[in-house]
């Protein structure tokens, strides 16, 4: 029995949903906005899906559409602009293998990342996902050299935020 396009899409998105969740967490401050953005990304992915021919992995294709949606198409509700609440990341750092001190450092680091602007967050996201600079540059549409330079600047900015 052959799968319909819709079935195949839903299955793949369900398997890869953490990609979308991670982007939502980076770009929104509370769970309402998170769900809002998740839905918008799902709609955009579905709209673009007929063009996805499986040349790349679903995950590689999906994160790009998701980032573009978060940066360009999504309109934040005004209430969540610049007010970072940390409820969304409460579970994130509760991982057994980290000691308390490391957990604290992680939390501070994550809060620092939250203070970056949309473009900087996109670079950090791809850095955290271990994408190489060729891919980062291609995704954003900038040169590789400039992507590298920008990433170094962002690291500097994060250090400043952490050690004011």
């Amino acid at each position: 029995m052959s799968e319909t396009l819709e079935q195949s899409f839903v299955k793949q998105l369900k398997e890869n949903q953490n990609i979308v969740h991670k982007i939502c967490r980076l770009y929104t401050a509370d769970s309402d906005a998170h769900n809002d953005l998740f839905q918008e990304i799902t709609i955009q992915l579905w709209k673009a899906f007929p063009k996805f021919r499986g040349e790349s992995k679903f995950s590689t294709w999906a994160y790009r559409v998701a980032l573009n949606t978060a940066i360009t198409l999504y309109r934040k509700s005004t209430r969540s602009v610049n007010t970072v609440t940390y409820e969304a990341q409460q579970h994130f750092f509760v991982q057994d293998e980290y000691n308390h001190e490391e957990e604290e450092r992680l939390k501070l680091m994550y809060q620092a990342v939250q203070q970056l602007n949309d473009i900087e967050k996109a670079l950090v996201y791809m850095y955290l996902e271990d994408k190489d600079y060729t891919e980062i540059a291609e995704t954003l549409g900038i040169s590789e050299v400039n992507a590298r330079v920008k990433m170094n600047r962002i690291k500097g900015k994060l250090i400043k935020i952490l050690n004011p």
Partner: protein
Amino acid sequence: MEELDLLKKAWQKDTQSFQQVTENEIYKMLHKNSSSSVKWILIISILELALWTLMNVIFNADEYIKQMHAEEMMIYLKVLNYINWAVILWFIYRFYTNYIKISTTNSTKQLMHDILKTRKTVQNYVWYNLGMVVVSSVLGFVMAFLYSPDLGLIKDQIAQDEGNGTIIKIVCMLSLVMIVFLVIFWLFYKLLYGFLLRRLSNNYKELKKIDL
């Protein structure tokens, strides 16, 4: 940077902290309406195109010209009218091709560029129409002045004037009305698209700055 690499490790291990969405929920999402800025730009743009095209249909000057017995002007107005329609069709075609190009699978910069270009086309369309409103108002006034019997009184007054007081007053008044009209439109646009596109334009500027 040590902290960032610590975060990277935690980030990549992290698969448990999100409430998982079920297949059923995804199906439901597929049938919900998008609230993306592009969708709103599309809706507003189509309304604008329709509104101004409608205005062109409704405000047909033929009757008015017949009333004024200015038939000799008809041929010029007809030519102007055809040119106007050609320009309008060109704008609509441009808008359509720009809109088709918008794709979330492009690079972020290209996507933003395409969105802003689509908007720019519609904006130019509106400015073109406002320009036409100004041009045809001036033309209309000149024609009325030359042909319309209603303006006899004003003409008499101008003829009686020692200097050019009356005509200067009329021109000033009409210019003022047009300027106010244009400023109101400009403000309306700033607000409308500013609201929709502030975030996108800021991000586009930021991205362009990186590549300088």
